[in-house]
């Protein structure tokens, strides 16, 4: 099994080579693109199959030492429950993205080479069983995705986005490497089994927590380390952003969970959960609020990703806290919620980003103010988008609901940890999460309403055509998955049981044990206080809808009449304006106004300036709305200043005289020798 996975990774690397080679042969782009994306599709499906087999049949975990590796030992790979769960997501999302890319016009080598490499890096991170291999895969993933963001490098904006992304990727690496180093401690072995055997204590444990959270958080886009995210998504193409948002963050979260929940041992204190809970809740609220303000669809979805990453991190934090307080079933509940949400979000966000890619390809823009009315031109895409936003807004029978419900149940059980600080934090987090969920729903309504409903806002948008057949299939595949995942969350949780055991401790029962009812169809939170029957909900909803439809059909007169109605000033286009007066439709900024006024001024520094002319002045009045993320201001700018200061100081070294340079190196040598002598004397 592991051999198969390694073979897949090797094949992906080979595909990258093929793509690189095809750059030398002119006229082969189409064939190369087909080979690369087709190969990625097959390998992705293979990954998903292997992971599902591992989870479903409970195959034993057998670590395998590779015949090569770093100088101090062999690289080790293994597939345990947690890895398999995330590998399943990687396979499904990667296959969807590759299928979509197959339908698109062929990409250049700049995309074709790093695309399979990114998949390979992620798979390697997931199946690694020692720190070195994990970090190797993680960095391959980081740099490949950087290359993908920088692929369209002709625009200065994209170059800046790629540069910022690279800085954050380097920061993530710079935090994770010492975290693993501290974890290995004086023994020095990076193998997971050795790391588990000697959990860190005291200041080392604290440092691992801080470094792990900062490193994985920078890659996953946790607030306040999310500043790279929206610009990076503006630059990336549809399948690439689907892969990044659907899987790459999950891989970063996998590293977080692996590092803090698994490798640090099961006996860490309960307060370990607090930083994760706080970071998660703040990210959730911030992401959801920003999603309501963004003017372009891919950054909008990226901000919604921040929100969902926050939910998952919050679940991990709760798991840590419950586990530390010896509340096994609750820990399992929180872990199950997190894992389920990771899978659900991975699939529905892949779907939404593919929809965004299809819209971008068809309508030529991703600015909301140039889209609109696409449901007429692209009905299949609109249907897929509707499924996606339903899941993102966590509507009951769809995928997002079950996991968010479980998460809220876990939050509501937070008072069981008998620590007043934690209880207060959890109470605040519950409020924030509820608010974030509502804001996310609002953002999704805004997304669908402005992009697919209404009337086109630009000639190019009016000329949109439905996506080609392969793209449509690539949209319907994850859309179907979203529906399926939503209908059978109990089965999924049963499938995730090995992964939950890794996170919540080996002796815990799986949450939502399918009690008397048919296995897997009922979701029971915690100790049976509340249950959720997705199939019943779906049936009820269907029943209501069908009844309504019949009633309307029966009661209506049958003849359609068009009459003048008042529709909020949204009038039919006058003859001299072909696409209607754009001002009669709410725009992206207008739709965001209520939320901007309510919450934006406090959290996003939103300002609205109305400039009225004095009476008698014929010039038009002016209105300007502005919202900006404050984190670059108080986090990135000081860092940039610090960097400039250090650089200026380092520049001064160049002005040293020759003797000064010699003295500097001599002094360094003497100091190092003295340090060595002092260390030996101790």
């Amino acid at each position, binding site marked *: 099994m592991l051999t198969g996975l390694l073979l897949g990774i090797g094949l992906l690397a080979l595909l990258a080579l093929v793509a690189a080679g095809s750059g030398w042969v002119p006229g082969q782009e189409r064939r190369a693109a087909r080979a690369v994306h087709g190969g990625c599709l097959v390998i992705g499906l293979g990954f998903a199959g292997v992971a599902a087999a591992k989870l479903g049949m409970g195959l034993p975990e057998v670590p395998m030492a590779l015949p090569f590796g770093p100088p101090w030992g062999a690289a080790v790979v293994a597939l345990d429950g947690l890895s398999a769960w995330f590998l399943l997501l990687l396979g499904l999302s990667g296959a969807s993205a590759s299928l979509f890319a197959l339908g698109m016009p062929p990409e250049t080598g700049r995309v074709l080479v790093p695309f399979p490499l990114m998949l390979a890096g992620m798979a390697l991170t997931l199946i690694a069983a020692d720190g070195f291999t994990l970090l190797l895969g993680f960095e391959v993933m980081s740099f490949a995705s950087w290359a993908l963001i920088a692929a369209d490098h002709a625009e200065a904006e994209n170059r800046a986005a790629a540069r910022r992304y690279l800085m954050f990727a380097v920061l993530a690496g710079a935090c994770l490497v010492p975290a693993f180093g501290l974890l290995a401690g004086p023994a020095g072995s990076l193998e997971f089994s050795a790391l588990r055997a000697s959990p860190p204590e005291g200041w080392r444990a604290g440092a691992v927590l801080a470094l792990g959270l900062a490193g994985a958080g920078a890659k996953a886009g946790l607030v306040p380390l999310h500043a790279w995210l929206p610009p990076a998504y503006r630059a990336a193409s549809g399948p690439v952003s689907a892969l990044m948002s659907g899987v790459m963050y999950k891989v970063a979260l996998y590293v977080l969970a692996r590092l803090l929940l698994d490798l640090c041992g099961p006996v860490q204190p309960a307060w370990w959960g607090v930083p994760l809970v706080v970071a998660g809740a703040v990210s959730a609220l911030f992401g959801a609020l920003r999603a309501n303000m963004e003017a372009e669809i891919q950054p909008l979805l990226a901000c919604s990703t921040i929100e969902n990453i926050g939910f998952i991190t919050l679940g991990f934090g709760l798991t840590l806290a419950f586990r530390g307080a010896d509340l096994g079933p609750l820990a399992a509940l929180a872990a199950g919620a997190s894992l389920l949400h990771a899978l659900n979000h991975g699939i529905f966000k892949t779907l939404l980003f593919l929809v965004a890619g299809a819209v971008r390809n068809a309508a030529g823009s991703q600015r909301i103010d140039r889209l609109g009315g696409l449901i007429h031109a692209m009905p299949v895409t609109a249907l897929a988008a509707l499924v996606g936003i339903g899941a993102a807004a966590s509507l009951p029978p769809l995928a997002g609901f079950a996991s968010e419900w479980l998460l809220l149940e876990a939050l509501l059980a937070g008072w069981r940890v008998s620590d007043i600080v934690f209880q207060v934090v959890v109470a605040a987090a519950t409020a924030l999460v509820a608010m974030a969920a509502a804001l996310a729903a609002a953002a999704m309504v805004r997304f669908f309403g402005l992009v697919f409903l209404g009337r086109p806002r630009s000639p190019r948008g009016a000329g949109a055509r439905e996506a080609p057949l392969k793209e449509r299939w690539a949209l319907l595949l994850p859309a179907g998955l979203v529906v399926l995942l939503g209908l059978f969350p109990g089965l999924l949780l049963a499938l995730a049981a090995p992964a939950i055991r890794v996170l919540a401790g080996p002796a815990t029962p799986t949450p939502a044990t399918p009690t008397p009812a048919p296995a897997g169809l009922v979701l029971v939170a915690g100790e049976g206080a509340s249950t959720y029957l997705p199939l019943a909900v779906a049936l009820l909803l269907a029943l209501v809808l069908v009844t309504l439809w019949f009633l309307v059909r029966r009661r209506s007169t049958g003849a359609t009449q068009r009459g003048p109605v008042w529709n909020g000033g949204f009038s039919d286009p006058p003859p001299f304006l072909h696409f209607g007066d754009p001002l009669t439709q709410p725009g992206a900024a207008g739709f965001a106004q209520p939320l901007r006024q309510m919450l934006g001024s406090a959290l996003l520094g939103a300002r609205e300036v109305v400039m009225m002319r004095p009476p008698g002045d014929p010039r038009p009045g002016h209105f300007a709305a502005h919202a900006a993320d404050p984190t670059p201001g108080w986090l990135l700018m000081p860092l940039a200043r610090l960097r400039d200061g250090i650089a200026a100081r380092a*520049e001064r070294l*160049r*002005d040293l*005289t*020759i*003797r000064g340079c*010699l*003295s500097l190196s*001599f002094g360094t*040598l*003497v100091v190092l*020798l*003295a340090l*060595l*002598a002092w260390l*030996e*004397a101790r």
Partner: protein
Amino acid sequence: MTFGQLPYDVAHLFGGGMLLLSFMLLYQRRVTAVINGLAIQGAILACAAAWQGGMQSAPQLYLTALIAFAAKAVLIPLALRVLIRRLDMDRTVDTAMGVGPSLIAGVALVALAILVVLPITTGARAIAREDLALALSVVLLGMLMMITRRNAILQVAGLMSMENGLILAAVGVAGMPLVVELSTAALVMVVLVVAGVFVFQIRERFDSVDVSLLDPHRGEGR
């Protein structure tokens, strides 16, 4: 083999002699005397290498000794002498640091070298430990000499002395392949040539070999 046995004592004597010459180089005020000291240090290095060759019964060390003698005791001092005659420089040396402080610093460096080397080589043979400590001292003193002198020729002499220390360390360790020593020796010859050309250029431009005259002429930032 410990203290009191002939092979050990003779090896120790050679190493100590090199260290002593390093101190002489450090306080010597005249350029020709410095070059003489360097030549004697090279000769002692050759003796040390030959002695080690006998002791370790490693014939390649005789070759090293031969090269060291030819290069360090004869060729390089000769070249430096020719350089001085061509440059027609004044005989006294202006040091950047007084003789007293530099000697004190030298003693401190030797102490540091002993403190560093002796504990980390507890497993090694006594002779290798002592040799390493002496060699590290010679290297550090060579560096100290490079930064306490202003004259470019004397900086080259410091570099050569440093390299002598490196070779001393290399011959003291049993089993060091010959190719390492040969390549180091070749490297030093190249460095000497480059440094000679460099000194000539400085002299042509500034009519002096005091490197502090170079500082105002560096590229950016001034």
